[in-house]
């Protein structure tokens, strides 16, 4: 069942000062995307590729310049009053930085009880029990509610952020790089927690990361972004077993494999820097770094097209499509 559908989303921001004052950063360009109920969609791409902006657009935290997001068939931008308030509770976000995303002056109790009371999910009488239950859900003791954010480690704060996102029984949670600020030994704890919670509450997750390994671990499908566009989208296993887009291939080849016997070789590495998204390259944005680039790539913007044997696997590269997957 389709839960969220984005159609032709565009979002630009004014570029920072100086000579570029009139220019705009193209964060998201012509993105159409569907999220199905209970799935985890992974969103991977390099910094500045528009992942976080897309995540925020999908749950109405930010408005597109043009294009529409439909949630359960309703246009998000047309929602008013009670409907809007209700839909807002169903869409939550977990931020990357567990230090910046919790108010340092509030106790955990205040942080978790505020949304419950505001949206009438609890009364003054039973809010304490509900907060305690939330904390237990994310693996923290109920006594932690009396403490302040600075008394917790990064991993524990991320658990509090997850508890806050869960408090209003959401349908969708955007997890924006939820583990990249955490130590490696803690990352696995949080990834496992997200997986458990999804199973228990039938959540739909958008999991944003620049690391392919954690994306693969958690996702059912994965979308790969490059300079504001989706270049490939496929089932999580499929993306790795039959990779089409040359950028996806480069990402996979560049992820350091924890095996000293298998060294990355220079021929597999991409050359060139990531271009600016203020003035992205013409045609296919990837063409200046692409080993497959032909003349037509400089002119034509490739559209997402299904691969021959799998209608759910889309690739924006006619040359890779003609050549077949890896």
């Amino acid at each position, binding site marked *: 069942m389709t839960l969220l559908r984005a159609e032709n989303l565009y979002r630009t921001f004014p570029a920072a000062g100086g000579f570029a004052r009139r220019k705009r950063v193209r964060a998201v360009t012509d993105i159409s995307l569907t999220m199905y109920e209970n799935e985890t969609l992974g969103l991977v791409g*390099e*910094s500045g590729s528009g992942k976080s902006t897309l995540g925020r657009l999908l749950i109405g935290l930010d408005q597109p310049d043009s294009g529409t997001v439909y949630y359960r068939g309703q246009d998000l931008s047309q929602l008013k009053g009670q409907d809007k308030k209700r839909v807002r509770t169903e869409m939550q976000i977990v931020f990357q930085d567990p230090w910046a995303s919790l108010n340092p002056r509030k106790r955990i109790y205040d942080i978790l009880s505020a949304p419950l009371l505001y949206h009438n999910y609890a009364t003054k009488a039973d809010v304490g029990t509900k907060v305690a239950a939330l904390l237990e859900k994310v693996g923290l003791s109920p006594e932690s509610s009396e403490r302040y954010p600075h008394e917790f*480690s990064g*991993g*524990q704060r991320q658990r509090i952020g997850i508890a806050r996102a869960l408090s209003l029984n959401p349908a969708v949670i955007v997890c924006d790089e939820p583990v990249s600020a955490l*130590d*490696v*030994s*803690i*990352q*696995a*704890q949080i*990834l*496992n927690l997200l997986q458990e919670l999804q199973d228990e509450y039938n959540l739909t997750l958008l999991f944003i990361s*620049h*690391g*392919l*390994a*954690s994306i*693969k*671990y958690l996702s059912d499908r994965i979308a790969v972004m490059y300079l504001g566009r989706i270049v490939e989208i496929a089932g*999580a*296993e499929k993306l*790795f077993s039959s990779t089409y887009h040359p950028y996806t291939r*480069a*990402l*996979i*080849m*560049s*992820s*350091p*494999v*924890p*095996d*000293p*016997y298998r*060294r*990355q*070789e*220079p021929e597999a*590495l*991409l*050359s*060139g*820097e*990531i271009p*600016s998204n203020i003035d992205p390259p013409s045609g296919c944005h990837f063409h200046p770094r692409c080993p497959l680039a032909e003349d037509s790539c400089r002119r034509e913007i490739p559209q997402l097209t299904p691969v021959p044997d799998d209608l759910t696997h889309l690739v924006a590269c006619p040359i890779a499509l003609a050549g077949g997957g890896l």
Partner: protein
Amino acid sequence: MMATGHNEPVLSVRDLAISFKTEQGERILLRDASFEVKRGEVLGIVGESGSGKSITALSLMGLLPVSGRVSHGEAWFEGQDLFTLSPRQLDRIRGKRIAMIFQDALTSLNPVFTIGNQIVEGIRAHQDISKAQATQQAAQLLSRVGMADPDNVLGQYAHMLSGGMRQRAMIAMALASEPALIIADEATSSLDVTIQAQIMHLLRELSLERDMSVLLITHDIGLIAQMADKVIVMYAGEIVENTDVFTLFEAPGHPYTRALLETVPSIEDDKDRELQAIPGVVPEDYDAISGCRFAGRCAYVEPKCRESRQIMLPLDKCRQVRCIRAQNNELEFVHSTQCEASKIALARRKQEAKAKLSERLRT
């Protein structure tokens, strides 16, 4: 075959301890750290934040914050103990014989001088040549680190470059004085993976080409596998394992190393693999713990682990660990290794890399 002098350590650190003044009095944040880096070797230091890896590097360069000090130990580099040098003597080594590249290139490059200016200065600090000759060398260096348009970059300022290019410029600057050792502290952690892979590959090649040693500090196990020859694993202010990279991945000797390897997802994994999380968190006041500092999170803990301070002891020819149970041969996973096999694998990997490099430089 290896040239003579290869087994000479370039850097030899013995019994290093570092303490910091805090509101609670003086705390020992690193202790009992001994390791060496051989010529042309990449030594990886892996550990989580707060494990002591960065302060180890900073202490070698005399760059500890004012509240910190080396409270014990020696660091021998080219016949001198770095910790006994005067600031002036240290100036002759820092940035010249030992160069450092950091995570944040923007703060390490001088914003008011051009990239060319800064590299030329580095070159002329150790070579008596004209400015024009130095500029020519600077352009060659920039081209060697992968800058497409070196002559243009010479005249640019740090803020005009992208993150990856800045990192390259910083490496070119570090190379300018032909250092014997480069310390790279999380040098690519803020870069995207495709750029990180390029920079790391570059460092690997340069180390081979110039017989330069690298001290690579990272939290990324994948980078360790790709880059390091030897590895030290740090936990809560101590080195807990010291081994070569092949042994590390095949037969880790310390329960923390083993747990760390199992906690890292890999793109090679089966999707159904369960990630083994390490329970709990790194203890904050670890210097107050009298026994093993990992005991609270260890799957193999026994009462005796908490009784006394753990010491580093060899398990065999290629592994040293700080774990009494491993040392007593009580842990099943610490199966005996073939140190010889690792040694051969290491030598072969290096030889292959050298062959590939010379082929690449020919074409």
